[in-house]
């Protein structure tokens, strides 16, 4: 039985795993880089241990350091979360060699599905439809360029290891390809520790629909229905939901069966996700397997009532799945919005810094998976994801209203977040109608990136600024009541006292 779990990850997913451990009576050990001493996961874990300097390559991606720290901590298992080493077969093997249970698939099946090129070959042989593209990996850039010519432009450059859209780029003409491949390789190296990339045919305006799967070590494999994740910017998911508004029971069953077939063909165990593209004629194509817990797993948890992270731990413990395919129900509608520290009004540039004020939405049908707290300084070294807001209601329409209402009350001060942009998406009529595609954001950018004009400053903002500034003459200024708070009145704007 697993008694202590080491978590070489950070942010909201580390917090999520620590919570699951606590509820299962398992001791949690947070690993942290020197940039993360003050991060939330370190505070709430039972134990915490430093694993290296701020750059991920020297800490969260440093297999040597991670395994050493895990052994020192006395943990008997490792939950890698997503990103970092989660889909690194060498790491999974190293864990096994050191007598640590890796909570995820075996290194062998991870090697197969983790390599996007190899997995395409395998599933194609089993009759699963795939997108035309490279079927053998190439290190040589000029060979990749030759392959791209064969496939025909536009093509998509993708990192062979890892996912999350990191390093993925659309290339429409040959002259841009070399530069894009180089950038992808650099990003892949820094994010996954492996710089292999490949190209495939780019399908226009597809939907991204994925199937959550879960398999134990006793030959049982089931799927937990689909998630639609078509709302993406820079190939990174922004909003996910379940069920998909695009598919009917027939396609749902076919996709689910196909996903389970992929699991069985690849000998995959533990939780994973089989990603598909759905073209405009509702044909689906296998994309890749994400061999880890997915960022968007909470939407599936809510509509099925199954705690995926706890189920992962049970499977790693050797227990059989506690449900059969027939027992899994799908009730209501769940939507996740990802809160990134990025400026939506300036091309999503990252916005690290100190969170001066934080009020997270709470209430019925609202779940926040968060890695932040008021006063936290968001470092610039890692992913910009701060937290995820997941809402649930009986119908898609109601869930959208709930998401909109909850996001409107989500107050994160001091840094920029994409909340204003998410609100624009949620109120867009095409989003409400369920007419989604991965080019949604590009197609409607004019509306999605238009925010109320700065020139028309609302009276309330002007009044707040004026009152705040004019009261800022020291603690004895008349007027504004301070409700017993420590002095914040130490600056003065360009105000003249006229009386």
């Amino acid at each position, binding site marked *: 039985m697993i008694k202590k779990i080491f978590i070489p990850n950070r942010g909201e997913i580390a917090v999520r795993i620590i919570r699951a451990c606590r509820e299962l009576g398992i001791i949690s050990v947070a690993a942290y880089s020197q940039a993360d001493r003050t991060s939330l996961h370190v505070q709430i874990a039972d134990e915490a241990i430093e694993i290296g300097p701020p750059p991920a390559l020297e800490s969260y991606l440093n297999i040597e350091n991670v395994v050493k720290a895990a052994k020192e901590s006395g943990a008997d298992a490792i939950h890698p979360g997503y990103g970092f080493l989660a889909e690194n077969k060498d790491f999974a093997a190293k864990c096994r060699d050191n007598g640590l249970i890796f909570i995820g698939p075996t290194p062998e099946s991870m090697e197969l599905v983790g390599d996007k090129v190899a997995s395409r070959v395998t599933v194609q042989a089993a009759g699963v439809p795939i997108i035309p593209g490279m079927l053998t990996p190439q290190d040589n850039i000029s060979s990749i360029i030759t392959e791209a010519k064969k496939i025909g432009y536009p093509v998509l450059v993708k990192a062979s290891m890892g996912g999350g859209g990191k390093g993925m780029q659309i290339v429409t003409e040959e002259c841009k390809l070399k530069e894009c491949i180089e950038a992808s390789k650099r990003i892949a190296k820094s994010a996954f520790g492996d710089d292999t990339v490949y190209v495939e045919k780019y399908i226009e305006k597809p939907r991204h629909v994925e199937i959550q799967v879960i398999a134990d070590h006793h030959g049982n494999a089931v799927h937990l229905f689909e998630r639609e994740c078509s709302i993406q910017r820079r190939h990174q998911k922004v909003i996910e939901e379940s069920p998909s508004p695009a598919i009917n029971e027939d396609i749902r069953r076919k996709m689910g069966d196909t996903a389970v077939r992929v699991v069985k063909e690849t000998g995959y165990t533990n939780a994973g996700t089989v990603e598909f593209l759905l073209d405009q004629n509702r044909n689906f194509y296998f994309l890749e397997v994400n061999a880890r817990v997915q960022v968007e797993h909470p939407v599936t948890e809510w509509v099925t009532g199954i705690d995926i992270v706890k189920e992962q731990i049970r499977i790693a413990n050797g227990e059989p799945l506690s449900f059969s395919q027939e027992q899994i129900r799908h009730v209501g509608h769940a939507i996740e919005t990802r809160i990134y520290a990025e400026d939506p009004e300036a091309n999503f540039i990252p916005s690290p810094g100190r969170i001066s004020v934080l009020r997270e939405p709470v209430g019925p049908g609202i779940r926040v998976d968060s890695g932040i707290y008021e006063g936290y300084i968001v470092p610039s070294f890692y992913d910009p994801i701060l937290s995820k807001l997941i809402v649930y209601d009986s119908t898609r329409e109601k869930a959208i209203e709930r998401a909109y209402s909850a996001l409107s009350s989500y107050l994160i001060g001091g840094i920029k977040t994409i909340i204003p942009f998410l609100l624009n998406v949620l109120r867009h009529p095409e989003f409400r109608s369920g007419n989604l595609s991965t080019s949604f954001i590009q197609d409607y950018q004019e509306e999605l990136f238009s925010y109320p004009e700065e020139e028309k400053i609302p*009276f309330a903002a002007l009044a707040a600024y004026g009152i705040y500034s004019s009261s800022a003459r020291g603690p004895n200024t008349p007027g504004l009541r301070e409700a017993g708070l420590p002095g914040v009145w130490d600056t003065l704007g360009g105000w003249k006292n006229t009386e």
Partner: protein
Amino acid sequence: MKFEAKIKTGKNALRETRIEVLDKAGKFLVQAGELNEIVDAEIIGPGILSLIIEGKSYLVHITEGKNQKSVFLAGREYIFNEGEDAPELIQAGPGKFEGKIKAPMPGSVVKINGKEGDIIAAGQVLIIVEAMKMENEMRAPVEVRIDKIMVREKEQVEGMQVLMEVSEVEKK
């Protein structure tokens, strides 16, 4: 007690704003443009104000920067500049090109293309800054000469820190 100020809103519009402290605690008379309202204001946390104006409730967050304040209201940010003159509203977003290449965000320098004295064609990448796994390429807006490089690769930089100075290459 009365306060007043001129606030530039947007590029041109200039708006005079008057604040009068009323007798009742927390009540102000605010005049801006054509509006003249009693504002009930309470501080409810560091930089957080609750306003009630004509029965409508507003939750506002103000952060103070160097010579500026940001007012967050209903998911939007309004920036008030407090430079030498009257407070002036400036636009959010990355700075304009002024011969100085500035970091758009805190992060680290991934790549510098060229050395001091090099000529870089319009549209080519000058320097790449990475933060949160996003690479931000700073390109030459016109054909430029690199006059000075202030940073090295792998160096951590602050937002708005000057990375390079360049000058436009005169067309013959």
